[in-house]
């Protein structure tokens, strides 16, 4: 991807419509989404606007990951993200029951995918955008142990700056295609993810493997939480999803630091 295209997003005016039918490998009927992408940025014909955000160390592949997801393309060139960016994608979400059967209810979901800079010097800027997202793709580089070690720090950043202390998160180990350079073993990562109680995926923006699944899983988590939060009185909506509750760093009481 040409990482940051200069301001005026031309697509907005063009009404480009194209379909990318994603052949989702649905393992054991656990995923319930048919992903038909219709990018019509100008119309407001969708049911929900869902905002997700990718975060992680610099160079783990956040931008290419999102580029792969939205445009199904891969740009091997590393172009550091300047602070913040976002991409959009329209998907159709098919709600499902816990037992795996679809209810037939479908929603058009407009995804806003925030892409953040991993560089330290943009940190205060990017963390400011954490609150603008409902779900998070916490990414690390499977070929970089350090990026994996930093996951816990990103977790605490999320706790401090997201809309709540236990937001929906998906752990993503990217660059799975570079098997020979791999530094982080799947077992390690899985353990960490289990510790946090979040799903874990090993993806490759280069090949596209698991990219969509990771995003859709996250979307599913968010949608689930949405429904839960609507169904019950919105007293403590944040705690609705106990599964994703972060086990580390128990929620501190600073609701609003002002």
């Amino acid at each position: 991807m040409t990482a940051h295209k200069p301001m005026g997003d031309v697509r907005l005016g063009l009404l480009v419509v194209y379909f990318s039918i994603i052949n989702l490998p649905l393992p054991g009927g656990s995923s319930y989404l048919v992903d038909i992408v219709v990018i019509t940025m100008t119309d407001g014909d969708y049911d929900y606007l869902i905002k997700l955000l990718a975060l992680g160390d610099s160079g783990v592949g956040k931008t290419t990951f999102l580029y792969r997801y939205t445009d199904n393309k891969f740009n091997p060139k590393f172009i550091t993200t300047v602070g913040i960016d976002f991409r959009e994608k329209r998907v159709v979400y098919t709600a499902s029951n816990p037992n795996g059967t679809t209810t037939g209810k479908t929603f058009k979901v407009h995804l806003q995918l925030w892409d953040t800079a991993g560089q330290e010097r943009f940190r205060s800027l990017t963390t400011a955008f954490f609150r603008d997202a409902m779900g998070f793709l916490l990414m690390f580089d499977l070929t970089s142990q350090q990026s994996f070690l930093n996951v816990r720090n990103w977790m605490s950043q999320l706790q401090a700056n997201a809309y709540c202390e236990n937001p929906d998160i998906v752990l993503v180990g990217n660059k799975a295609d570079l098997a020979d350079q791999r530094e982080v073993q799947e077992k390690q990562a899985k353990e960490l993810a289990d510790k946090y109680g979040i799903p874990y995926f090993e993806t490759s923006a280069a090949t596209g493997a698991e990219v969509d699944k990771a995003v859709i899983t996250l979307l599913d988590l968010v949608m689930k939480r949405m429904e839960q939060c609507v169904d019950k009185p919105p007293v403590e909506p944040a705690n609705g999803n106990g599964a994703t509750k972060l086990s580390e760093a128990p929620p501190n009481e600073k609701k609003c630091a002002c």
Partner: protein
Amino acid sequence: MLLRRLLRMIPPDEPLLLAGRRIHQASPSAGCAFRGLTARGPLSPQQAQHQPLFIMLGTTTTGKKLDLSRLTDEEAKHVWDVVQRDFDLRKKEEDRLGDLKTKIEKEDTKSELLGNQTSLTESYCIRCLQPFKFLVNSRRQCLDCHHYICKSCSRYNKKEQGSVCDPCHMARVLKIGTLEWYHENVRTRFKRFGSAKVMRSLFKRLNGEHSGSQSDYGADGYEEHSMDATDSQHYKRAPGSHDILVLDVDGGEMNLAEAHVASVFHQMSEQQRADDLVFSESRTVPSRSVSRLSHTSCGSGSGGGPRGSGSYLPGPDDSGEEEEDEDQCRPYLLYQSHLGPCSHTSQESLNSALPPPQISDLNRHISNIETILSRLEQKVTSTYDQASLTPSSSSPLPQWEGVDLEEQQLRQKLHDMTNDISDHSLTSDEDESNGPHSSQEVPAWRSPEGDSKPSRLPTRPSSRTSTVDSILEEEPQQTDSQKTNHMTDSVERKWLPLEEGSESSFRGSTALLVELEGQVAQAAADVQNAQSEVSYIENRIAALNAAGMPVDKKRRSAIPVHPRRLSQNVPSSQVDRFVRNSLYRGSLTQRNAVAKPKTGANCAKPVMTQGS
């Protein structure tokens, strides 16, 4: 620069309103940080790729401070664009939800109208008005609105084991779609959403650039100063309007941009009751403002002024509005800065440059007045006690005869003094003309009594009339027509010149105005003090007159008591006086007035004092 150019393109087409009281919690220091614009190039990929652990740990604590000062212009522009896009998207979303709401409301109205007629709702679907028929079109009750509806107008919800009519379903979707729960969360944790926060910071950055660029102009940047000052004024004024931020000032690019954003805010908040956009917080006040100040001062080192200096700002007043710490931060700093060590914007230097000279000038004048007063007293006493000793050698008016002359002179001076306790042009004028002489004479015939009196005079607050003097300096061209103004009038009049002066030099700098106003008030009080003192002296003189002077002399002396006479009567020292006069002529005109009535009255009082 890029940013500014960009901002200029934004049309100020919408009302400049920001609804909601906005409090910024996290990054009060960002404002000052903004002024130091460092342009750092992006790190190389290798550098950036793997960050050491400790860096991240360090930032976890400070994560809430938004510091965009390290962005280059281009980076800031990029961020700006992204944020702009986000605002567009949000706007679209608001529109969409607004449409949905409208639809639902319509449906609600309809069902409200029809719902009262039981017979109708029992047998007809309230949504489509089709009659219910057994088996063919069986009726069911909506879980939400409890109206009877037909199958086609509802959908069955397995989980709830019931039907929900379409409008109610839509309402549910809307309820989910507005993400109330999410926004509720964000609200409780933060004051505004991220884009808004960043947007605000970018504004500050812009402001920072603005003021920063002025220092380049040097002395020529005067115009810019005033403009910037106006900006800060509008920031300051905004707080006063509490819930609504009105950006009404002259259109710098910043204002346009801010206007645009403000309008976005406004529109969005209108539709969503400012829900998720501008988090209105009723949290107030003094404590916050204090903390804000302190934050400000301890904020990142690029521009923090001493916090104490903020005290003269109308703090309690605008703390209520809590207009973004960040917003306030900058103006505050500017105002504070002239006390602070780090005045690197020209604004600051302006501030620091102006007041001090005035004050020193004022002090000079005050001391002048005081010396004159003491001299007068000395003269009076000497006249009384030793009339024969009158100004012999170096007296300013050698050609006048004896006590009469001396007395007349004194009277004249006193008259002037009373008139112009605050009018230093006259007094200083007098001072100049008499100064050299009296300084010579005084040692010669100074009496112990005379010594003691002057000592009392200097104890008067030196600050008094200081403002007056500054006014005078600012308005050197006052016409003589104003001579007749009453004393109190003149005090009030000071406001006018003051405002004019401040406008011209640092137009709109509210804080300065406030400060000056305080000074004026002080000065007014002081002037009255001085006035009473002068009248006291006058009384004494009058007492002297009554006691020792023949009536005819008195009358004679009374006649010339007129400002103009002075110049005629005192031809000597013409040169000296002229210089002084030209300098302060303006002030002279201002407050002459009071004197006349006073002299008369004072003359009456007298003897008692004398006796004592």
